[in-house]
């Protein structure tokens, strides 16, 4: 097991009364693609600025490659950042932008030229070296910003909402390119984003942040399939919630869903008892026109449907007034039979649920 590249121990940062970062403890492995995910104001940007050295923590320690960063200014940290606005120097050509960090290190002209050419090739901008930032498209600026931040070969690259300014098509393409670059160079990436797709699509591990604290850390699948809190369940993806009661009978744990149905809980489920929320992802919902089996226990009417190409989403208003969301891949041709106004039965299987503390 390699030593962690980044270690945060009890890091806190306050602005007045606001605890922007609240005793965060976190470790990043070398070569990892890590994401800080959370809504705006959750402290992810502050945490990133603490790592970059633009802010100093009120408490806690930040170690980079084993070295305490206390009192180390941003220009002496082996960390580079790709800014959300890209922050390209408008009075310099693409080449000089990329060379900027190398020139600060006192690298020789020849070495700089070699490295700049290499970086231009990496971000597929050969031939654009002499242009000015204002002559580039949004996607090209983004690549220059990436090349500039990577050129000095930092140990850690911070990416602040790197795809936010790109349109949808370009975003997916760039996402895969970023992953490729990260793998090729083996540099540790720390991505900061409010966009769950961005985090889930690229990062090996995600730290979900809320109100200055880390709510849950894990890979995308773990957070999606096994959220530990209601916040985690609702922030990533869509979720249907049912009131219920968790009980223990003869050593086995069960959840009693409001309405009376009892479902057995898996071992790894959070060991909560008492009043709980039973959470089910829309794609795990079962829906049929017939009352078939115990899984389809609620009756309601389809009020809305949205056909999105790869999947279809239905909103089902239950007879007791609750609103559920059901989605299915359109690979299933049977989808076509469900339309607005249909009376349907919806429900879920016992293995599809996640029990959350209320």
């Amino acid at each position, binding site marked *: 097991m390699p030593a962690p590249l980044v270690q945060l121990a009890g890091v806190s940062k306050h602005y007045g009364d606001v605890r922007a970062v609240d005793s965060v403890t976190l470790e990043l492995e070398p070569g990892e693609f890590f994401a800080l995910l959370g809504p705006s104001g959750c402290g992810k940007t502050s945490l990133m600025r603490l790592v*970059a050295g*633009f802010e100093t923590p009120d408490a806690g320690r930040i170690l980079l490659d084993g070295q305490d960063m206390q009192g180390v*200014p*941003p*220009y*002496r940290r082996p*960390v*580079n*950042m790709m*800014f959300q*606005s890209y*922050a390209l*120097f*408008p*009075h310099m050509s693409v080449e000089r932008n990329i060379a*900027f*960090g190398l020139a*600060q*290190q006192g690298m020789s002209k020849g070495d700089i030229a070699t490295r700049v050419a290499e970086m231009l090739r990496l971000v597929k901008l050969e031939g654009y070296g002499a242009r*000015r930032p*204002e002559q580039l498209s949004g996607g090209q600026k983004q690549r220059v910003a990436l090349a*500039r*931040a990577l050129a*000095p070969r930092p140990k850690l690259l911070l990416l602040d909402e790197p795809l936010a300014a790109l349109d949808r098509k370009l975003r997916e393409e760039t996402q895969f390119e970023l992953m490729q670059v990260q793998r090729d160079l083996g540099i540790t990436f720390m991505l900061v984003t409010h966009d769950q797709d961005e985090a889930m699509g690229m990062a090996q591990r995600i730290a979900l942040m809320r109100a200055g604290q880390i709510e849950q850390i894990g890979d995308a699948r773990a957070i999606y399939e096994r959220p530990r809190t209601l916040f985690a369940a609702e922030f990533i993806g869509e979720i249907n919630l049912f009131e219920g009661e968790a009980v223990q009978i003869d050593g086995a744990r069960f959840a009693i869903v409001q309405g009376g149905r009892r479902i057995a809980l898996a071992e790894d489920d959070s060991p909560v008892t008492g009043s709980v929320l039973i959470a089910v992802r829309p794609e795990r919902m079962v829906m049929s026109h017939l009352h078939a089996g115990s899984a389809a226990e609620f009756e309601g009417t389809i009020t809305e449907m949205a056909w999105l190409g790869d999947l279809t989403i239905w909103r089902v208003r239950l007879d007791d007034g609750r609103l559920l969301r059901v989605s299915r891949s359109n690979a299933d041709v049977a989808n076509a039979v469900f339309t607005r106004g249909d009376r349907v039965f919806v429900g879920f299987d016992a293995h599809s649920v996640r029990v959350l503390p209320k």
Partner: protein
Amino acid sequence: MQNNAAAGAGLPARLGRRLVLIVPYVWLILFFALPFLIVVKISLSVQRDGRPPYEPVFELGDGLVALWGGLQKFSTESYAAIFADRIYADAYLSSLWIAALATLCTLAIGYPLALAIARAPRRWRPLLIVLAVAPFWTSFLIRIYAWIVILKDEGLLNHALISAGLIAEPLHIYATQWAVLIGIVYSYLPFMILPLYNALEKQDEALVEAALDLGATPFAAFRQITWPLSVRGVIAGCLLVFIPAVGEYVIPDLLGSSDVLMIGRTLWDEFSTARNWPGAAAVATVLLVVLLAPITAYQRSQLQRKGAGR
């Protein structure tokens, strides 16, 4: 249909647009070009006793013969006098020198101030800018008189320095070119701060952070990012200070002595004491030509920059 409607509205609309453009031109012609032509005309006239104290004088309705006669009286002797007498060259050079020095000083003081205001929290900036311009609320003359009280041998500054034990004998600042320099720097500082602030405030603060992040020390980041991106503001501020400072009359008159030679005073002496209107007009015309050089150089550099940007 729509095309027809557009064509119908086109003529008055185009006329309206022309008119809007014409207004500033009319203004410039009436209040700049015409007066300047009159000054040039007077500079080519000859001094005489009488009212006005120069000839030829043209009257409407003189007829072509009188006009021709008048034109033949034009002479360049005032210009010849300027180039013949060293005192004019000295006054021009001394004015340019004091104005240049004052411009450098206002830049040295104004840049850090403008930078501090531009980097201050957003809600404080308007207040700080108002404070920078606040001296304008008091009469210019009163402020210059106040400097006499401060700079005199027995004034506030010397009093304070002697009480503090820093000097034994009072400093002779008042009635020297240093007092003129201080007065100009003080009076023109807001003209330096405003364009600098305008240039600095527009800079994305992330640019400096990016430079620091890429390993530039704060000084290196200033030298490579902040300064080059503010050069337009620097040039604008320097022109706004330098040009009026060269022709400054009131400050050298009140704070300087007769040996502080500045062209504004020479001009005034020529005009009032010597009643040499053509001479004064020639001094003013030469000054304008001298000042035109840096302005056109600046504009050319702006045009080139624009051309390079394309």
